[in-house]
């Protein structure tokens, strides 16, 4: 073994990772034909080979026709990633034989992709902001699937082809090798998923393969004598979870250093290889060396006309672009004073963020004039407690509860005015999830209006103090925390309608 790269001579190593991400776009129909798309939520459970037509099955004489919706989705993602949108891009054929590829070629974009040259900032694992370059994003069509199981799970001797996925629009996003650790790659992948969901271009359900990751990984090794060695690049194919993405990178980081210690091979022409991820053993497995790589014989697709994006279309797509998650989270912090956890929770779903903002607007409007920050905090805390609880119970989102933002504002105002207490407000919200109505009327009808009249309070407090003589004693001895037990009892007696502040004052007065 050459001594130049002996193990003891390594001073430091650093990872260099670039990422390719395939996103299945949730258009209603496929990339090049009007047959429904399996990546659309309405069709994900279609029986095998039911989303097939002459174009999908590549019958003789069938021709592709471009789906405009897919192009516009691709442009939207491109704009969100800060990419240049090509005014002119075209389609190419990537030729190879495989039973899941009906035409014997995949329609893709080779040298003129729809999106090029962008960048996104992500929060790095080291606390800094990391800028990740986007080299390109291009459209293509997905392949079918090969399986060996009959419906019902029975094993089949030969191979079975399901063409439901064939022709699903795929957006392939390629980053620059700007990542230095697995954490940052996973953060980027999660942010990208969030972004794509936010834009409504995919459901982003990993189990259904809506997103697949292919990291390109190598290690730069610095030796004690000041020399640098870069290990050969490995591309890990088809990772469909954040866990496997992280696992594959961390495994390669170790394996490549070990391999270099063994054979000293470094990066160079023909030294790139492709590996797969074994989810059970948590290791990568060699699939093929690049030396026997396919020659895909790319050439321009003669059945399709080039994609020409004019200013009008670009402006229209740009106009549909919502405020993106990263920017929105920052604004929630700055404008409403939310903490990062609150901001993230509200921005998780675009509809929730929009619902939240509508509630804040309603509240400001009802109140006449006010500082947005305090209103925002009020609404955020309420939605993330009373709202999130109901959403969880019902397996939906905040917006999915279908409560009108104005009702939320009215309710918060009632609470602020002391007409309902916090517990009652929560209960009124629960009732609003069942049926719309005026919060005040609901509170009254259900006996949830806060009681502040002296006689009632006096009676409850007297009864509660009698029931907790020890607490009264403690309180007299200066242990102010003991008051909680007495207040709790009053609340129980009043069915939650007693005004907690008034109760507190009354107890102290009596003691």
């Amino acid at each position: 073994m050459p001594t130049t790269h002996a193990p003891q001579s390594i001073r430091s190593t650093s990872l260099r990772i670039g990422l390719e991400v395939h996103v299945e776009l949730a258009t209603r129909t496929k990339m090049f034909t009007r047959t429904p798309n399996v990546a659309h939520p309405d069709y994900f459970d279609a029986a095998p080979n039911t989303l097939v037509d002459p174009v999908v099955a590549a019958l003789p004489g069938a021709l592709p026709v471009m789906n405009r919706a897919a192009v516009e989705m691709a442009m939207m993602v491109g704009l969100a990633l800060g990419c240049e949108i090509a005014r002119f891009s075209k389609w190419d054929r990537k030729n190879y034989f495989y039973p899941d590829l009906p035409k014997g070629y995949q329609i893709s974009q080779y040298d003129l992709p729809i999106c090029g040259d962008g960048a996104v900032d992500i929060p790095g694992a080291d606390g800094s902001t990391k800028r990740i370059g986007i080299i390109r994003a291009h459209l293509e069509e997905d392949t079918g699937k090969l399986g060996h199981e009959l419906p019902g799970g029975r094993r089949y001797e030969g191979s079975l082809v399901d063409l439901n996925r064939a022709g699903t629009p795929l957006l392939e996003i390629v980053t620059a090798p700007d990542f230095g650790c697995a954490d940052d790659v996973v953060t980027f992948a999660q942010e990208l998923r969030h972004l794509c969901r936010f834009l409504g271009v995919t459901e982003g359900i990993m189990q259904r393969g809506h997103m697949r990751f292919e990291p390109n990984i190598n290690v730069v090794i610095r030796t004690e004598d000041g020399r640098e060695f870069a290990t050969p690049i490995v591309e890990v194919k088809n990772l469909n979870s954040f866990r496997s993405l992280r696992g594959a990178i961390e495994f390669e980081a170790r394996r490549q250093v070990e391999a270099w210690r063994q054979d000293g091979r470094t990066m160079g022409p023909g030294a790139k290889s492709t590996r797969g991820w074994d989810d059970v053993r948590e290791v990568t497995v060699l699939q093929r060396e690049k030396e026997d790589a396919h020659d895909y014989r790319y050439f321009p697709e003669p059945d399709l006309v080039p994609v020409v994006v004019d200013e009008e279309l670009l402006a229209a797509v740009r106009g549909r672009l919502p405020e993106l998650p990263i920017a929105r989270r920052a604004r929630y912090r700055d404008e409403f004073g939310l903490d990062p956890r609150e901001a993230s929770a509200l921005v998780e779903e675009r509809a929730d963020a929009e619902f939240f903002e509508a509630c804040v607007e309603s509240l400001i409007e009802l109140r006449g004039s006010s500082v947005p920050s305090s209103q925002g905090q009020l609404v955020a805390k309420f939605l993330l407690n009373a709202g999130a609880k109901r959403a969880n119970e019902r397996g939906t989102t905040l917006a999915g509860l279908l409560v009108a933002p104005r009702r939320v504002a009215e309710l918060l105002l009632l609470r602020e005015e002391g007409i309902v207490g916090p517990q009652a407000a929560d209960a009124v919200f629960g009732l609003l999830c069942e049926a719309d109505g005026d919060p005040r009327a609901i509170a009254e009808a259900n006996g949830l209006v806060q009681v502040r009249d002296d006689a009632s309070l006096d009676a409850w407090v007297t009864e509660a103090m009698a029931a907790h003589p020890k607490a009264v004693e403690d309180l007299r001895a200066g242990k102010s925390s003991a008051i909680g037990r007495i207040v709790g009892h009053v609340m129980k007696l009043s069915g939650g309608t007693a005004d907690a502040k008034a109760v507190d004052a009354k107890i102290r007065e009596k003691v």
Partner: protein
Amino acid sequence: MSAIAPLLRDVTALRAAIAERRVGVLEVVDHCIDVIGRRDGELRALREVYPERARRRADAIDAALAGRRDDPSAAGLLAGVPVVVKDNIVTDYGTTTCGSRMLDGYASPYSATVIERLEEAGAIVLGKANCDEFAMGSSTESCAFGATRNPWDLSRVPGGSSGGSAVAIAAGYAALALGSETGGSVRQPAALCGVVGIKPSYGRVSRYGLVAFGSSLDQVGPFAHSVGGAAMLLQVIAGRDERDSTSADLGVPDYLQALDDRVESLVVGVPVQYRSDANDPRVAQAIEQAVEVYRGLGAEIVEIDLPLTDYGISTYYVIAPAEASSNLARFDGIRYGHRAVPEPGEVLEDLYARSRAEGFGPEVQRRIMLGTYMLSAGYYEAYYRRALQVRRLIAQEYARAFERCHVLLGPTAPTPAFPLGGKADPLSMYLCDVYTVNTNIAGACAISIPCGLADEGGRRLPIGLHLQARPFDESVLLRAARMFERATDWSELVVAPSA
């Protein structure tokens, strides 16, 4: 001889006879099926005939016409007109084989756009016409189901690849026929069989349902005995189709209305390269006579220089096989078509290789290999990219030529029909298309019309006059062709011997 035979040569007269109920559609169809039955044993122009379906449709149209004596046009422009269709245009009845073992017995679940348009217009599809395998050839000999014969001389080829369609018109099987072109496959057999054939501008006619050979060159084209008949068929099939992105989003002019109007101040361009020494002298003479006919009609004759003419074949034989190598990849034996019987120990690659080796004939295999080679890493730049550059130059040369003239005139093919097996060397076969390929490369439109008969040992062989016009200028092309047709009697003289 039946009164129907001459009507098949004059679609306008046939339509009038049907509309006025002088002849029943069923009578027409029966006549055609009778002729096919008597002649096709030796001519082998059709691979498949649909007599029952044709008769059912004939009955239906007869019934519809009987009910609408006041408005016969309601039944469609081609009501009751019998048509044959090249075997590479899919129909949702019968089979479509492209003349290949690969697709023997293949039944398409859908019909091509051109078939839909034909049938909506009332045409009756009688059967599928033989062609060279996957339209690759110029003689209709490479068909897996046997070679088609030329009705003028059974020892000779009808041209190709749409040979069966041309013979169906020449031998009086039908009034109209559809063929397809990639480099001359309608015009050359039209010339060799003595009928009219049109190559429409690229994008004029939908390719949806035409089995692809060279996608950037392919077009469906009509055959008829006269310019008027071919124009009528073009009228029906032309126009934008949402299912073919390359179909032009342009209105289709009324080709029939002004067909008999002369082209004002017609300028006919005669490329010097078309007056080649390689032309058969009888062909050369017929073309010079055609020039004189136009001169006599008052046309201005100008000499045109098309120096890139000779590069057409080389350019074509890069682009067409390259596209074909990819287009024919779908014939892999997985979903449909011929599949080899697996042998023990064989893997997926063997299944592909053997299915394709058994399913495709030698010419198809040759072109797939050529195309695959030319698209391969390291060769793409030298062949395919270079060919695309030359293609652009040829299109520019055409554009410049059409600044000086309305139509380019020359022979459709350098020789009349040649003997079966006469061009066993692929290269000599490829050179049959020397005058036609550049039309496809430039996306222009063209027509071949009969302009003479060559004496060949006591037999007569038709000669075709080739006119080309700028892309989407079919109106001028057809009117210029019609001027020649009216001024000469070739349309009457060039009728193939009936037995």
